[in-house]
């Protein structure tokens, strides 16, 4: 096969990636979109192998078979609740692959230059700049993703880890990484500099993600997704390879869009998520005043009776539902109520959970039809006509303070207006504040009933009580 033919094949693959991404954006065509992407990838891989005359087949087979087996096992065995960390982990693997490829190309180029006794630079300016960029972005993506994985898996604390001089430390490390990059560009033959750059960027990745708390994870995961694309594009510049550049920049750009959507849903800038931060201060003096004597506790039986007389019920799930694995109870209660001709729907906040679309995935696994899952803007006008809203494991995204007062960490964040419903039932372990560390006046509202307990257990009791009522 000629290089031109391979490039033509890469063009076909690139078109398939574009069509794949486009189709992934619509519910009807999403499955096809994913398959188109996979076909594009398979074409590119087979074409590349063919072009190279199937050299090093034992290593190629080893890498591909080993990677495929692990990838498939992870993808099939993972629980839907653990999806955020898996996506994070895959991002990281993409990042480290870019680091390794750029490193391999650098060493091969330098070795060849030495052997041919050339005195000039081993690489062109484009290649050396791209090599440094691959090392930097790839390593930040890799370690950043591993930390995000650790936080989501509970290995690393979900709390934002902040310290004095944090921003200075980050800027110094970034500055050092940039200086090293410049040194690599000036003299690529010093390959040890590349590995120092990778190590430093890995530290930077840790420093960037450690201070970010659990509730901001949707934004971090979307951003790291974008980085893994940019790292692949940088590696494309190292190899002057069209398909890497196209696929990498497609993912980089689409990841940025998703990141922006998430930021908008929290009414925060990306800079604020990365460098500022909600959740740093967890002290609230007025909490006692807000709740004093106004919180009404209820029982599963009472809620079941209220539900029996309702005609319109909405669930508002949050990360707490995922943690408690309460979604099966939600489905059972939904089915029981629908059998009684009660209209049931779900209000989904864009940043509920730990990754974009987290709640949708969990409820879909329970076979809950996706046309019942309604976006914030769509469901908000309907809350005044809703008899009962069941808030399950959500807190900050239903906090009326976001709407009413300035000066709170969540002021201006768009919320689900559940307080406008006739009755609000909040299922929660305790009155402890949510991620933002602020009290929620919803819990003390006249139309709110608190149903304390573990989400899964409470849902089971509720299903039983509803069937008895």
């Amino acid at each position, binding site marked *: 096969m000629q290089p031109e033919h391979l490039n033509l094949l890469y063009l076909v693959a690139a078109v398939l*990636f*574009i069509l794949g*991404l486009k189709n992934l*954006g619509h*519910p009807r065509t*999403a*499955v096809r979109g*994913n398959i188109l*992407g*996979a076909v594009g*990838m398979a074409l590119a*891989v087979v074409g*590349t192998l063919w072009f190279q005359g199937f*050299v*090093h087949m034992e*290593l190629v087979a080893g*890498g591909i078979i080993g990677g495929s087996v692990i*990838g498939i096992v992870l*993808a099939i065995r*993972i629980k839907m609740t653990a999806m955020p960390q*898996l996506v994070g982990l*895959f*991002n990281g693997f*993409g990042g*480290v*692959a870019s680091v*390794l*490829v750029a490193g*391999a190309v650098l*060493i091969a180029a330098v*070795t060849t230059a030495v052997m041919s006794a050339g005195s000039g630079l081993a690489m*062109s300016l484009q290649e050396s700049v791209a090599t440094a960029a691959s090392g930097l972005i790839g390593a930040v993506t890799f370690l950043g993703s591993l930390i995000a994985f650790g936080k989501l898996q509970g290995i690393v604390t979900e709390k934002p880890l902040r310290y004095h001089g944090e921003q200075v430390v980050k800027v110094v490390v970034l500055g050092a990484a940039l200086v090293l990059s410049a040194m690599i560009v000036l003299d690529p033959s010093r390959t040890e500099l590349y590995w120092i750059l990778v190590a430093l960027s890995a530290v930077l990745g840790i420093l960037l993600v450690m201070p970010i708390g659990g509730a901001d994870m949707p934004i971090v995961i*979307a951003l790291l997704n974008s980085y*893994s*694309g940019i790292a*692949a594009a940088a590696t494309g*510049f*190292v190899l002057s390879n069209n*398909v*890497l550049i*196209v696929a*990498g920049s*497609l*993912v*980089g*750009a*689409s990841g940025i*869009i*998703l990141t922006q959507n998430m930021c908008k849903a929290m009414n925060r800038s990306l800079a604020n998520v990365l460098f500022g931060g909600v959740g740093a201060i967890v002290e609230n003096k007025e909490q006692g005043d807000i709740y004093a004597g106004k919180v009404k506790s209820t029982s599963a039986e009472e809620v079941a009776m209220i539900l029996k007389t309702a005609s319109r019920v909405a669930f508002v799930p949050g990360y707490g539902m995922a943690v408690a694995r309460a979604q099966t109870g939600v489905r059972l209660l939904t089915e029981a109520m629908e059998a009684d001709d009660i209209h049931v729907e779900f209000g*989904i906040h*864009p940043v509920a959970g730990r990754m974009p*679309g*987290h709640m*949708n*995935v969990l409820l*879909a696994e329970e*076979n809950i*039809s996706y*046309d019942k899952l309604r*976006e914030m803007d769509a469901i908000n006008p309907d809350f005044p006509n809703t008899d009962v809203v069941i808030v399950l494991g959500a807190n900050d995204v239903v906090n009326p303070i976001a709407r009413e007062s300035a000066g709170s960490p969540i002021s201006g964040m768009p919320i689900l207006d559940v307080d406008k419903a006739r009755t609000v039932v909040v299922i929660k372990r305790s009155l402890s504040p949510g991620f933002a560390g602020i009290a929620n006046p919803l819990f003390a509202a006249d139309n709110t009933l608190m149903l304390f307990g573990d989400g899964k257990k409470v849902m089971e009791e509720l299903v039983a009580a509803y069937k008895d009522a």
Partner: protein
Amino acid sequence: MLDTAAFINILTIFVLAIFVGFEVITKVPPILHTPLMSGSNAISGITVIGALLALGAGGGTFTTVLATAALFFATINVVGGFVVTHRMLSKFKKRD
């Protein structure tokens, strides 16, 4: 040595692809946020091609080891990404 014309060519491809990326993903319903992310994540495993090229170009033992490791990680990314996306999408159903 720096081949300016070739560089401008791939720079053009890069810039245009970024614009395509922005245009393709403008309005995605929230139910597809996760699948879109994991699907695009699989596509970013395109580095698998880079690993194959680095492996095929030959070189010393260290180069080969690095390229093979890259191939392994990128393949997990690609295969795992597409499979998990498919699994997720198969759960999205509309019932009447």
